[in-house]
């Protein structure tokens, strides 16, 4: 139980901090959030700087062009960049954290050479085509189909919740290469393809969220031709290929967010003190409770990182599934409470849609839904961690006709 960082870790932190101090003041002003090409340029520019300074692909294995950093170093990197107000991973997210690691682990040598360096250098942007409107939480029930025609797949279907689709060069796409048959598990027959976003038949439509933003898009694929050579892993083995990416998760997924939430919490407390809402003990105690929540969420992050670092050192692949679900259940709740409390502190200004806390309050509504609803997370904890039996399968019985109100 050692919470002190090693000399090596502290040295890594000091070097990073020095570099950030030097480079951040030289950055251009951030682009307008609605300016997609501007955002792409800004994000990839930052990635180029990271690459030149030796921080690109920090947590990637060295043989994939990464730096092979330990999970603790990655944690320090995320903590320090958030603290310093460095740009977010942004448009490079899918490339660096999903598609890249997948190709590194499962791609052929040729595929690795083709796709990995441009990601690290900030030259190519990837997006993700996994979710579908009819699949929802049941991701593996996806229906986008790919029919083989010689050396190409002909892909038809639709995807949703795709970020940066407007400016991406590539899409990591899950498709059904073998139709579902009765009795076979639904995650069979899926393949993983790298689809060029400029291929004919790809149509992108911005998807407006309840927060009013168009961070996401829908993607409609109409007989899009993707070379068979763009398939990573074997045909019909795409589900396993995708799951491999998870083994790159080292408990660091929310480091930056927790650091940011703690900063915001301090700002909310100071705003409360300034406008007098601090004098309401209910407000003050909720702030204190949130201080405890985010303090322990930070410690839980360290715990998960320690666990995965140990697993890596002793056995190789680390999938801290337990910690991740436990963390996400509590974090999504704490984050929603944080912005509800911020609204109380804002008082008459709480409905101001231009206030960043109000915008965050809206977007925090997705935290109990996206990437596995809280209900799904509780199932994971109950079944995979606690070993409780699964539910029976089969079709539900009909109920009596519903009661009507009035």
């Amino acid at each position, binding site marked *: 139980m050692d919470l002190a960082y090693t000399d090596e870790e502290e040295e890594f932190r000091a070097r990073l901090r020095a570099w950030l101090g030097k480079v951040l003041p030289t950055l251009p002003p951030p682009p307008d959030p609605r300016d997609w090409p501007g955002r792409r340029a800004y994000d990839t520019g930052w990635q180029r700087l990271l690459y030149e300074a030796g921080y690109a692909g920090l947590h990637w294995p060295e043989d994939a062009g990464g730096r092979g950093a330990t999970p603790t170093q990655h944690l320090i990197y995320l903590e320090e960049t958030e603290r310093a107000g460095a740009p977010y991973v942004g448009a490079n997210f899918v490339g660096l954290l999903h598609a890249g690691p997948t190709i590194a682990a499962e791609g052929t040598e040729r595929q690795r050479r083709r796709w990995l360096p441009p990601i690290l250098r900030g030259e190519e942007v990837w997006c993700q085509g996994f*979710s579908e*409107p009819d*699949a*929802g*939480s*049941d991701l593996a*029930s996806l229906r986008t189909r790919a029919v083989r025609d010689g050396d190409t797949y002909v892909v038809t279907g639709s995807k*949703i*919740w795709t970020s940066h689709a407007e400016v991406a060069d590539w899409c990591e796409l899950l498709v059904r290469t073998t139709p579902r048959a009765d009795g076979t598990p639904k995650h069979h027959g899926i393949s993983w393809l790298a689809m060029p976003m400029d291929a004919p038949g790809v149509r992108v439509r911005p*998807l*407006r*969220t*309840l927060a*009013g933003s168009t961070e996401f898009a829908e993607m409609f694929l109409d007989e899009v031709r993707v070379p068979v050579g763009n398939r990573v892993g074997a045909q019909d083995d795409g589900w396993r290929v995708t799951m491999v990416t998870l083994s790159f998760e080292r408990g660091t997924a929310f480091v930056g967010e927790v650091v940011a939430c703690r900063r915001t919490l301090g700002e909310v407390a100071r705003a409360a003190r300034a406008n007098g809402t601090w004098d*309401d003990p*209910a407000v003050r105690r909720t702030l204190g409770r949130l201080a405890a929540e985010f303090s322990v969420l930070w410690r839980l992050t360290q715990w998960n990182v320690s666990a995965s670092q140990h697993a890596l050192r002793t056995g190789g692949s680390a999938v801290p599934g337990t910690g991740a679900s436990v963390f996400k259940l509590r974090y999504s709740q704490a984050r929603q409470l944080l912005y509800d409390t911020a*609204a109380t502190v804002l008082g*008459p*200004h*709480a*409905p*101001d*849609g*231009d206030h960043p806390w*109000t915008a965050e309050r*809206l977007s925090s*509504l*997705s935290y*109990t*839904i*996206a990437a596995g*609803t*809280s*209900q799904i997370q*509780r*199932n994971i904890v109950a079944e995979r961690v606690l070993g409780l039996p699964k*539910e029976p*399968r089969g*079709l*539900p019985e009909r109920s009596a006709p*519903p009661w009507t*109100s*009035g």
Partner: protein
Amino acid sequence: MDFRLTDDQRALVGALRDLLAARFDRTALRAAVDAAEAEGGTATPPRDIWRALGETGFFGLRLPEADGGVGLGLPEAALLFEEAGSALVPGPLTATHLAAGAVPGAATGEAVVTLLDARVAGPHSVAHLDAADAVLVLTADRETAEVTVAEASAVRRRAEPLRSVDPLTPLHLLTMADISEITLNGTVPARAVALRREAAVLEAAQRVGSAGRMVRMAVQHAREREQFGRPIGSFQAVKHLCAEMLVRAELARTALYAAAVTADPYETAAARLLADEAATRNARDCLQVFGGMGFTWEADVQLHIKRSWIPSVCGQESAADEDMLAEWLL
């Protein structure tokens, strides 16, 4: 004692429900959202809806028949406001209803009247100020006095617009100093304390309506949407979310009806607390049932969430209601 709705009350509710189905269905609601976005909120409430409501007696409901009203009481008004809340009808419904008989055109829906309650320290928000013709003003030092009226333009001159989180509830803010500068040009024959109580009932009614709508929307979705090979409503997690939503909506509705019948200040405070909780939490739980589908701009659940975040007209903070109810126990 027969707490249930009378046949007349049921008929009244049914008539408004039919009107709203014809004149303010989902398409009209989304058109109002689009118009509000296009014109920065100055388009709400839609004047045609306002007049249609006026024609049914929505605003003049409690005026004596001799004065062109319907001659009904607060319970009937609560029932109608519940329907309006379920349909998310935009506009200063409460203020215009309260102004009927005192501000010309309010009873018929020709005039749009909003309200500014300056009871506590500012800043104070006023909804729908751009679309309003007149403003009921309740100043801090006139708790027992009659309620005053100002022209909307006089208030507008002092007010700062806000980009409201709810597209259907445009807001302005005023400081206490701004308010003292407003020229008042009339009074309403009502005491501020009574008017605040009636406002609380009518605002709670709209929240109860929204909370009930959230139950119905969540249940319909849970019955239709399939995941993992079965309707999601067959999963206990979803079932129990829906059941708790119903409990909240039914309790809040019961509290509302009791407050409307008794006009008791404590029961009104209880109704306000429960209606607020039901509207806020049911809208969130409805989003949870819809999942990602509910997170899009096109889904209506967002409109209920955002409405629930707008403070009630004449509302005080829950803490003040709770303190008042605690005093009741002594």
